[in-house]
């Protein structure tokens, strides 16, 4: 099943033509990895999926992004509701300077959840979902910034899960983390696909190969090749893909 359909998506930052006609389908409850060298447009593409580029000055977007057949750039779309459905985890862990509990509850409060018991319940469920509950359950009221980098990133995932998204975008979520924290987050990701559709940007090709079901290779603002991850890494059709994944450039 297709969750997100991208049709002929172009994006300009001023003079810079950053995305050049992207056509890509993201499948429901799968992990799709976006790979490619720096500046290829993979992060920019990821951010178009929850309209995080909206506030960038001089940005111009054309083409279509359909989430469950609805155009997310349509005139009547409420960005708040869109981002509730399409959550995002960033490159470096960015918990807010408040308690662990308040971090996990932040999104719920945005969306107007007020009942104390309900918030408690969802906070616990999200922290469990992000595999960090056991580590923090006795210190929910302590500052989130006291956690280690890996724990902070899992808290950020929990924060995203708390608003019950359908899609989770991850922008190099482990690039600032040590190998053990990375492993924990990778394990978590495959767990997440039971309920969520995951799109991850990664610089780490082993990571893409390990965790993703589908892989899209970006180069210079174009989507060069998209296929099942096994096939992309075993038998890429495009020579540029092959050059990249075999380490000849990038």
């Amino acid at each position: 099943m297709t969750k997100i359909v991208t049709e002929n998506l172009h994006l300009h930052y001023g003079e810079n033509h950053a995305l050049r006609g992207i056509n890509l389908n993201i499948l429901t409850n799968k992990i799709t990895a976006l790979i490619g060298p720096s500046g290829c447009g993979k992060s920019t593409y990821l951010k178009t999926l929850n309209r995080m580029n909206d506030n960038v000055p001089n940005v111009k977007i054309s083409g279509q992004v359909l989430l469950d057949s609805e155009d997310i750039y349509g005139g009547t779309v409420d960005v708040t509701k869109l981002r509730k459905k399409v959550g995002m985890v960033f490159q470096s862990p960015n918990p807010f300077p408040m308690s662990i509990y308040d971090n996990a509850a932040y999104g719920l409060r945005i969306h107007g959840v007020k009942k104390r018991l309900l918030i408690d319940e969802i906070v616990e469920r999200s922290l469990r979902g992000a595999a960090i509950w056991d580590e923090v359950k006795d210190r929910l009221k302590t500052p989130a910034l006291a956690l280690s980098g890996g724990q902070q990133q899992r808290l950020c995932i929990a924060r995203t899960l708390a608003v019950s998204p359908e899609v989770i975008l991850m922008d190099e979520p482990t690039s600032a983390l040590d190998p053990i924290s990375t492993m924990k987050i990778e394990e978590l990701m495959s767990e997440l696909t039971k309920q969520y559709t995951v799109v991850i940007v990664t610089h780490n090709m082993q990571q893409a190969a390990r965790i993703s079901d589908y892989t899209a290779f970006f180069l210079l603002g174009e989507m060069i090749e998209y296929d099942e991850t096994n096939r992309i890494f075993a038998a890429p059709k495009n020579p540029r893909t092959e050059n990249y994944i075999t380490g000849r450039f990038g």
Partner: protein
Amino acid sequence: MNRAMSGITGKRKRPADALLYLVIGLFTAAVFAMTMYFAGYIFVKGCAGITFALLTTAPNPIIRTIGILPAIINTAYIILLTLVFAVPIGVGGAVYINEYANKRKLIRVIEFTTETLSGIPSIIFGVFGYVFFCVFLNLKVSLIAGALTLTIMVLPTIIRTAQEALKAVPLSYREGAAGLGASKWYMIRTILLPNASSGIITAVILSVGRIVGESAALLLVAGGSAMYLPKGSFFEQIKNSGSTLAVELYRYAYSRGENEVGFAIAALLLIIVIGLNLSVKLIGKRLKGGAK
């Protein structure tokens, strides 16, 4: 090449360096000594004059006693009113410039204006305040006119300091909030302002320092005497004229020749300013510690 040149041992003393250290040391000592002498002189001469009666009574010309309670009350009123006007406007302005204004030119004009305002001598604000607030808006010479004039004076400080504090809030927090669907205003309320609060508090305390120390402008717009304790309702009180401690200091020391009272007020003001500066440092430290 000898051994001392090729190795890392054998530190050579340069006479020019030694001289420079000496000169810098002397200057430092001179600055320190002057400050200490100045503060010490005022404390020694002033603290003796600070009595319970002075602090808690109004002047009584019949029995010839002097009290500065009315001036203390006027000062408190002016601080309170000025902050009530200036903090919301200043912080709101800083939030607007930092978060909403996207016209570079407009931002530069505002920043240039605020910087220029902060360099203008206070008496000019006094003249403007008199013409605009006292005469044009018909507020007469009053505490409220004084507070409004001071509002214009402290706004640049508040705006710039608050702006710096807002700029210091990491972009990643804003992104994180936006990524969860927070509206800009929600993000400002829950992330930006709480994180910028230390800077905003610093701005407030610096402003209080400026308010406490202002005399020239207030003499024109708020009045030059503090003989009576305020009467009537709050609004009646702030519509009356009255002088603050700094203005009283000027009057006692200059026109009445009451030097002891002048020194007592000077010592009191000094204590207030030092107290304010210490609290700025303390709050800065506390919030820095809290962020880790």
